[in-house]
């Protein structure tokens, strides 16, 4: 992969921001939460730890080229699917269907993304997995909870595999004058979602009055969402230099990515609440799993992908 000056610049920038964030969190912790008792500070520290991991993994994968990024996201999808299907309704009769989800559909989807066969990977899970997986389940067992079982499995695949695979799919978009730099689009997406997620929290703390979903979360407010979407737009405009688009276009993309990411995270919270858990997994004890850290990115990825593809890409 041709990692141009923008990539180096970005890497340095991210490193600098992470160091500052880490220093700030360490300071805050010493002041407010020396015994690890302040949940806000602990959450921030956990988040920054996850950012280091995401940045390091992405940087390594990017060095390995497009194949590296595809493999990285295939692994993330695997971990996410494992978290999701742990919580869904299932019966012993679904064993083959779930086996197919993990060992056939997931690798095949990422293979298709790697091969850049858009016309197959864009319909593979929504059409073929959707129609054939329930067949496997019906061949093996009874109708108890059938609709619940098959629809929850399909949801797991759509979120954890289909939507997530649109992140590496960004690398195969043909953008005039942007050859070999598509990796920056992934950075653009991930940075905006991660930062606005925190900004939403900050805005809500400062000005929040009206909860978006009172029965789900008191800390997410319309004021916070509005502030975050506005900040996301500004952030997008500020990062126009790492995309082939105009500042105005990246601002609009920033709005859309932020809004989709925030509402996506809210949807995922509703599922967690429905299943009676606080976190999807325990990557590190008490600090959530893969889905907890990437829910917004996963929701925003297909939308971002299609907007770019529709308006800018050479098809």
């Amino acid at each position, binding site marked *: 992969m041709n990692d141009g000056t923008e990539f180096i610049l970005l890497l340095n920038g991210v490193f600098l921001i992470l160091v500052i964030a880490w220093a700030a969190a360490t300071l805050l912790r010493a002041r407010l939460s020396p015994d690890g008792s302040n949940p806000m500070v602990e959450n921030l520290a956990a988040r920054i730890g996850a950012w280091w991991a995401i940045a390091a993994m992405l940087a390594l994968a990017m060095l390995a080229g497009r194949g590296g990024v595809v493999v990285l996201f295939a692994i993330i999808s695997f971990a996410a699917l*494992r*978290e999701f299907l742990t919580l869904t309704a299932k019966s*012993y009769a679904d*064993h083959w269907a*779930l*086996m197919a989800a993990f060992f056939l559909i997931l690798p095949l989807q990422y293979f298709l993304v790697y091969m850049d066969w858009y016309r197959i990977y864009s319909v593979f899970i929504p059409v073929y997995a959707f129609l054939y997986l329930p067949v496997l389940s019906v061949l093996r067992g009874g109708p108890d909870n059938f609709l619940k079982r098959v629809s929850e499995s399909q949801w797991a695949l759509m979120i954890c595999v289909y939507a997530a695979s649109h992140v590496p799919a960004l690398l195969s978009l043909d953008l005039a004058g942007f050859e070999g730099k598509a990796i920056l689009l992934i950075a653009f997406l991930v940075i905006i979602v991660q930062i606005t997620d925190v900004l939403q929290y900050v805005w809500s703390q400062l000005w929040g009055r009206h909860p978006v979903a009172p029965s789900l979360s008191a800390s997410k407010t319309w004021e916070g969402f509005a502030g975050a979407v506005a900040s996301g737009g500004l952030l997008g405009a500020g990062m126009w230099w790492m995309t082939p688009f105009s500042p105005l276009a990246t601002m609009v993309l920033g709005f859309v990515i932020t809004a989709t990411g925030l509402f996506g995270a809210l949807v995922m919270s509703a599922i967690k609440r429905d299943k009676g858990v606080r976190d999807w997994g325990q990557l590190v004890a008490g600090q959530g799993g893969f889905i907890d850290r990437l829910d917004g990115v996963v929701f925003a990825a297909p939308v971002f992908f299609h907007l770019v593809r529709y308006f800018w890409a050479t098809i």
Partner: protein
Amino acid sequence: MKLAVLVRFAGRKVRTFVANITGNAIALFTRFLTAARVNWVGIEPIQRQRVYFANHTSNADFVLVWTVLPAAIRARTRPVAASDYWLKSKLRAFAGRDVFRAVLIDRNPDTRPADPVELMARALDQGSSLILFPEGKRNMGPGKLLPFKTGLYHLARARPEVDLVPVWIENLNYVMPKGEIVPLPLICSVSFGSPMHRAKGEGKKAFLARAEAALLAMSQGEGADT
């Protein structure tokens, strides 16, 4: 003559070596599949002789408990398993005898040469900890536990000083249901409860009821959220 002894010695070393590597590979694979999370609720993971008694829903149950124990403790912990299953083929026998160093029990009281409790007590006397499934067979029903067999009680009476630790295994039944060969990657949890002992003069029924209750209590603990 000397050469034969040497060859046999080398053969044993190689066997142990292969068994160790196989054991580590199995533990790694189990971690990869189940992303096992461990809740040390009632005990700490320290080197101390214990009888871990767990719920039984899958053939892989003891592998999971064995996997989540720290390597040093694992090396001194032996599962109690059915000999009719584990001696069926050469491969299984290698896994059962060399890798897991299982205490093999004949489930048929008419044919068995040794009393199972006797075998377990002997393993304890050699310094090993044990993993044991007091339900006696896999629970395929909707209930959380089958009634306990009496082995645990007799063992508690034979070796009253040993800690009996209830261990609740969550979700493994979906990873590998009965009759399936390929395991599913799903997150499992293992919760270790507080050690218990048979009280002086405690009867069989009362003791087993208490043990069942202690195990069930772990199923509603921290580990039960998945």
